[in-house]
């Protein structure tokens, strides 16, 4: 994002976490409230990024291992004669999906709780900031009218 910009910028989805990173703009006259909001958003972004990058990587890895072990059990190689990667069909993969979901169930519950808390907090702070800004703008307008 350009250096002179006064707003936040959002980027393309991250390769690992599929989340879009945001670069937050910190104005020089940022109030304490605004700073809290920005830091909360940054923290939430970092935490989400960590979680999903790790989670997706684990998924990919375990999927590979599963395919490998199943192919091995069937006596096949990872690549067939034409060099194409051998795959399992949907029904065989279903076992893996079920397993993966149940293994990560607790992790997801914990993440959900955190995410909901963070989301509410950030939105509430946004509301407070918006309110303060609106009041400030109204006060300024009243002052302009009086002058």
């Amino acid at each position, binding site marked *: *994002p350009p250096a002179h*910009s006064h*707003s*936040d*910028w*959002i*980027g*393309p*989805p*991250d*390769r*690992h*976490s*599929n*989340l*879009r*990173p*945001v*670069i937050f703009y910190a104005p020089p006259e940022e109030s304490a409230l605004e700073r809290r909001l920005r830091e909360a958003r940054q923290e939430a972004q970092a935490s*989400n*990024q960590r979680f*999903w990058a790790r*989670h*997706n990587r684990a*998924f*990919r890895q375990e*999927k*590979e291992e599963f*395919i490998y072990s199943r192919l091995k059990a069937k006596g096949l190689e990872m690549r067939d004669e034409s060099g*194409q*990667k051998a*795959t*399992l*069909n*949907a*029904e065989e*993969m*279903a076992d*893996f*999906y*079920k397993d*993966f*979901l*149940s293994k*990560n*169930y607790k*992790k*997801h*519950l914990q*993440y*959900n709780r955190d*995410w*909901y808390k963070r*989301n509410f907090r*950030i*939105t509430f702070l*946004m*509301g407070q900031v*918006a309110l303060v800004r609106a009041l400030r703008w109204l006060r300024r307008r009243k002052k302009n009218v009086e002058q």
Partner: protein
Amino acid sequence: GLFVWCLRNTGVRWIPCRFVRLYHEANDRLITFQYFNFLKRMYVTQCNKDLSQRAKPKSDSIVSPFHELQQLDQEKKVVHKISPVSPVHQLWSEMSSRNELREMKSAAETEDSVIPVRAESKEDRQWKEMKLRLDDLPGILARLSKIKLTALVVSTASAGFAMAPVPFELTCFLLASLGTGLASCAANSINQFFEVPFDSNMNRTKNRPLVRGQISPLLAVCFAASCGIPGIALLTLGVNPLTGALGAFNIFLYTCCYTPLKRMSIANTWVGAVVGAIPPIMGWTAATGSLDAGALLLGGILYSWQFPHFNALSWGLREDYSRGGYCMMSVTHPGLCRRVALRHCLALIGLSTVAPVLDITTWTFPVISLPINLYISYLGFRFYRDADRSSSRKLFFCSLWHLPMLLLVMFTCKKSVLEKEDKGDLPRGSHEMAMEIRLP
């Protein structure tokens, strides 16, 4: 669009002649059906473009009207190829890129792949300023409120209204439809507000406004409040308190029960089915002011319909659900998934037969609807037995036209109010037969 059509074609005056009135009302329904067909066609073409889309009803219920409708994105389908640099991770190790390539290829080759190899469009790769542009706002809000799903929810509510055994009142109908639409917009917006990181990780939902940062969460919540509060107020004050209460309850059920439950237990599917069943009940109570057996029957038909629709759809999305952490029957209890779908296809036959018993339709309804009900049950049985992608897709696509057709047939077989008057049934007779729940 739908309402304009209705206004143009519905006769506002009370026409004593039954035939003329039926003709007008049938015209009304025909337009709805055409609208359904139009939406269905859009839905189907969307489906062909991106296999991972599915419809869910209100509050993302399982289908439109009940489950989320596929995102009807007007944007062109982007094809992604592996981009070499990610903005956050500067270093791109050889190992990981090779793995990425292999994984992408294997995903493409997997029979059940819902992640086609795509090349990233230039636009998508760029950094965008997070500034709200006013001319983008209508489009953004339409996507936030899942406007097409909302439209189908409103259609089922109007079906409930049309099936109620009372003379048709246009203002009541419009108010009820508007109120339901607003409530649905609110519920869908809150749902998207809750699900941002999960939506980013699923192919079907990653182009939503909150995911792309086109709108702030605060604005989404404000929009939801500004739709929901007037919507429920309109229903409570402009129609009747019962409908308002049902609307508020449905919003609550969708946002606070179904959405969190999706990640905790497979019971979410049943809750979502109830969410989808409530709009026609709301339509009925808007017309009659009371909760009759007819309302519950209509709700029951929609409830049962949800299962073949959603279960068939979710069969193809198992990988995304598993990775995203969604607890769905198709992933955790696949046998149950198929059994339930079949069970409810058969239940539809049963419910269609009950309709004339409750004096909602004539006996021609179960007879005429039998072929389509049998067909969907047959596809449900095939899905149960084969449990593969093709049978799930067939069942899903069948469910898309099955519901509008069933509702249309039901409407054309509706027992006319005049007929009941002749038999001396109205108003006391129908009330004696029906359960009545009145709110003060």
